[in-house]
């Protein structure tokens, strides 16, 4: 018997979570969540030998994130973390303690994003906050990269 791939264990957790969320919320379009979960499972199964598997998983996971967060933002955050975990496991990005730390940081960052969205009434202010933070990070990185290149080019 072949052992279960690690990303399938996360799929089981995700399936259980999505079922629980759907049942608790008693949404009139409850079947959408299950259909999207089925889509993600199908992609996970079909792309097991493909290169760039993480890309296909992320693409098929995003609709489920949107569907779950329509009724509850924290349910969406849960799906984001599960899909990200599956992408990381499928791409072998969770092999060391350092990788797990990076993944935990991503989950923390996603929590902060969800928090900002929760407090914000409209998309634009929240998006401005995210854009500013991203621009600052990119600017700092660009300066550091420029200095790094300069050092190694002997300038």
């Amino acid at each position, binding site marked *: 018997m072949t052992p279960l791939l690690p990303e399938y264990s996360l799929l089981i957790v995700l399936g259980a979570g999505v079922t629980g969320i759907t049942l608790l919320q008693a949404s009139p379009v409850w079947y959408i969540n299950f259909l999207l979960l089925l889509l993600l499972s199908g992609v996970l199964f079909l792309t097991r030998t493909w290169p760039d598997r993480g*890309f296909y998983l992320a693409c098929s996971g995003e609709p489920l994130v949107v569907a779950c967060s329509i009724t509850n933002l924290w349910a969406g955050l849960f799906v984001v973390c599960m899909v990200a975990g599956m992408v990381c496991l499928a791409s072998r990005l969770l092999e060391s303690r350092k990788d797990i730390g990076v993944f935990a940081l991503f989950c923390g960052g996603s929590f902060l994003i969800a928090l900002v969205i929760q407090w914000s009434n409209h998309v634009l202010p929240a998006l401005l906050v995210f854009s500013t933070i991203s621009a600052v990070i990119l600017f700092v990185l660009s300066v550091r990269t420029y200095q790094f290149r300069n050092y190694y080019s002997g300038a």
Partner: protein
Amino acid sequence: MLLRRCTQGLCIIGFILLSGAIILDDMPLLLAGGTLIAGILGQYLVFDHQIRAVVSSAEVRRSVSRNPVRRGMVLQVTTRFTFRGTPRMHVQISDLLPPNTLIADGTTTITTRPDPTAQEHLCSYRIIPLIHGTLNFSGISVTVRNLFFEDTIRMTRESDQKPDITVQPSALFAVPSSESSEGTRDNRKASIWSSIDIHSLREYITGDDLRHVDWKISAKHDKLFIRKYTQPTNFPPLIIVDLPWCGTPCPEKEFERMVSEVTGLVKHTIQTYQYVSVLFISGPNILHLIREERNMSRCIMELREWMHPSERQVHFYRMADRSDLRSRVRNAEHALEQTTDNPTQAFCALLHNRYISILQYQRTPAFSGQVARTVSQLRMTQAYLFSLGCGDTSHIRHVVRPLKTQMIRVHIRMIEATHPEKPATSEEPADAAGVLP
């Protein structure tokens, strides 16, 4: 920094989601798009950290098969790269060639698999320098890629450009290009009818060579006039200076005397013939040619620049001239026919076999051809060769042979350390240690 294909796709999806969020003012879309972009940004931070680790641990050490090298010669380069890899990172390192070099064969790039341990890789290739001077390697190029990003960093610090390659010139053997712009070739060889001066003019007679028509005078007088050239004049001798190798000590006193003799002869030649040509060799290496120099001070300056012990790319050790070997084979055969004495016959047969085997395996050195091509550009009837006679002198025979072939009288001035007050002057390198007996 380049985004790889899957990252480009994820970025497009992220921007579509964020655009949808703005247009529809929809928070779930913002959460999906925002987390996706945050994930890509996080991966970029990880990639940036890893590329720094790889590049800062990268080191390069090169070794070249010979330095200095002559222009156009093939040079073997072995490069050793060391670096510490990181998990999931593919590293490709390329050695950047010096400018103005061609790669003859081999590979300058190594590609590694993801491995977090310290790695050492070798690459070996051959290059051909196209210009002379000091050439530096351009450094190395490190390309790092993971699942999401790819980046290339050129390391061009001084330590990454070592070693400097000294390329010596070697274009003395090419026939000089024509100075005419009419597509005609300039034949610089002296012939029976052409010389440096026009002696007189006469009217054209049927059968005269039309190439000798003086068109300017002909147009003036409306008649064809033929140029009559002077008979070949005495051309200045070619001065060949055999410089000692800087790798062994040379007798300073004798060297100074050789310098003063060469300088004196150069001055005398310019005064007598208006110009002089000096060829500098060092063993079987042609270093420099002063071609038909008329300016005394410029010529002396060049003598000062070149007259010192020199580095040798090629060394001969008892490299016999093939023509000499052939004549020795013939002599041995003749002696074999003449003699009836058994021990003498055995000795002659042994000698004959030895010469034959040397002839089979010893090819004509490139130096002989270079000398022949160089002297073929110059007009002369005699040549002076100055040498200290240090070390192996078999190359002298390879200088003398092409000159003799062109009916040029050669005077060899061997300034020996043992008899400084009485330099040997002969037309043949009688005491050339390198020539087989």
